[in-house]
């Protein structure tokens, strides 16, 4: 379970040069030297469901996910991950959270096994549990053949699997997938989606941030849409079509981008 309440994240900007003055007037998120990247967003992502996080580029998705994952501090508002406050108890949140981003890299000079062991160690897992878990994940993800090769030598698809293994090694309750299929071919992307669904079967709370509407239609139970730092829509896929009056999700997306907050749920 993930709860986000009136979350605000403000960045301080360096002083603008003169020529940028026009552009700043056009962006409602800029107030003086403050930039409101996330501006009062509230939603819930229940366990055992996949919540799709939608929004155009620069909507504030990455900032929102960084606050959820404790790498950025909230300016105000509250985020609870599995009952733990990100601001008050970030270490406990990190214990319960798995985060996978499409552009996450690997340590090229380590093998997948060493890499997963490193993150298991960082999570304070004991050696026995960790080794069992790594073998488990290697089986599920089909990594046995390259478990002891250097990550540098692996293909993009293999690397993505290693990344998944790294994300799940500590068996997190809440898992965030940030554009996990970007740049992957069809089989590799299918693998990821299957895994996202499997996490749902296991009762985990899954957040999926993506630009691919077909992925949203196929697997998301629940949608959260933001634009320019503000919440635009929450509800199911069916509700998104209904509310916008559009037959495809792409059109619905465009129609709702500038909507006032619609809470269909």
């Amino acid at each position: 379970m993930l709860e986000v309440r009136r979350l605000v994240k403000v960045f301080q900007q360096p002083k603008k040069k003169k020529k940028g003055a026009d552009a700043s007037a056009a962006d409602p998120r800029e107030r003086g030297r403050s930039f409101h990247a996330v501006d009062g967003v509230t939603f819930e992502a229940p366990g055992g469901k996949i919540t799709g996080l939608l929004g155009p580029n620069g909507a504030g998705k990455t900032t929102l996910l960084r606050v959820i994952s404790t790498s950025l501090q909230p300016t105000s508002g509250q985020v609870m991950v599995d009952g733990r406050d990100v601001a008050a108890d970030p270490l406990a949140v990190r214990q319960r959270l798995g985060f996978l981003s499409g552009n996450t890299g690997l340590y090229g000079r380590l093998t997948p096994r060493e890499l997963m062991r490193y993150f298991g160690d960082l999570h304070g897992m004991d050696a026995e549990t960790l080794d069992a878990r790594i073998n488990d994940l290697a089986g599920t993800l089909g990594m046995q053949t390259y478990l002891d090769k250097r990550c540098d030598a692996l293909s993009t698809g293999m690397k993505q699997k290693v990344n998944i293994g790294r994300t799940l090694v500590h068996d997190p309750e809440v898992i965030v997938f940030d554009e996990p299929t970007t740049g992957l071919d069809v089989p590799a992307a299918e693998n990821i989606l299957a895994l996202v669904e499997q996490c749902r079967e296991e009762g985990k709370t899954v957040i999926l941030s993506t630009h691919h509407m077909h992925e949203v239609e196929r697997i998301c139970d629940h949608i959260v849409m933001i634009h320019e730092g503000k919440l635009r829509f929450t509800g199911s896929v069916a509700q998104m079509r209904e509310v916008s009056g559009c037959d495809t999700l792409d059109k619905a997306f465009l129609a709702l981008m500038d909507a006032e907050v619609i809470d269909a749920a």
Partner: protein
Amino acid sequence: MPRKASGGLGAVYRKEILEVSRDRKTLVFMLVLPLVLIPLLLQVMVDFVAEANKKAATETLTYALVGEEHLPGLSEALDGVGGFERVEIDSVEAIPAKLKAEELKFALVVPEPLGESQQSIVELHYDNASMTSKVKARTADVLKEFGEGVRAERLTALGIRTFSDQSAIIAPVVMVERGTASMREKLGENLGGILPYMVIPFCFLGALYPAIDLGAGEKERGTLETLLLAPVSRLRLVLGKYLVVFTSGLVSATLSLVAIGGWFAIEGPKLAGELSEITASIGAVDLALVWLMLVPTTAMFAAILLSISIYAKSFKEAQSFAAPFNMLCILPAVAAMLPGVELNWKWALVPVSNIALAIKELIKGTMDYSMLGVILASSSVVAGVLLVFCTRWFSRESVLFRQ
């Protein structure tokens, strides 16, 4: 999950050391460079100096002699010792051109003396710009011996016959030098001045690549964000990384010292005269103390380099940021070599310069050990402050997620 108090730090350290040890570029800088470059540098330097000296002392010197009729026996004296070859010239005016063309190494001109049994003047014409030239010394040796022969003859003619009577007339009072500066001090001033140039850069170089890899490298590969999501405090993450950078720098600096010590142990006894004595007089304790000086030096460099690296967005940026800091290890060491700069309480507080000065004193064998304590303490404080800065730096969103 219960965690140990040190949780995470050890995991970071072990993993980063493993990665560093698998990086060829880092290994070259950290291990190969000090172990190969330093002995090579020393060997080339010593060989070059020895070769130049040997050549100057043994090469055949071509010379011209004008006015030999004014000083009978001089020509024979020059022929009597080896290594001189006479060249005939027409006139005194031809000397400068012939010296320039190196047809002559030197020329002796004897003007007409004022009268019988008067003092004779011998002019030496030669290129006095050459530093390694032994022309003056070798000619002076011959003239001195020749002059002494003439003197003995004249004294004998005056009735002063024995050698001791003659000595008592020539030099009734002789000063014998008993200087306080030992040979080790004199030569140590030079050798000790060079040593910091050899070891201090390796504190920097050894730490450079690991620092870039562990900070900017994590950003460039896109692994930093994932690492920050591990349930380990940022303080422990950065300390783990810092210790790896520090270890690498210290390994490199230690190896450079081992290379120097090893080279002198093997080659030292073969060196000419005083240099071999001084290398023999530098003991293991002195080298151990020099090493001790390198510990806080490396600690400072590691903190600076890691801070730069964390700030940079890529390897490239980190490298260009780090380049000016090269000066940081060279310039203070240069200051220590300047004439008039000596280790005192003020210099003992200047970072890096104090280390270079202390190394010099240790090699000279004139270290004031209370000063040593001050230097270690002040350097450790500076290193500590830099480390605190580095850890704070690592906790700032604007540094970690710099756009």
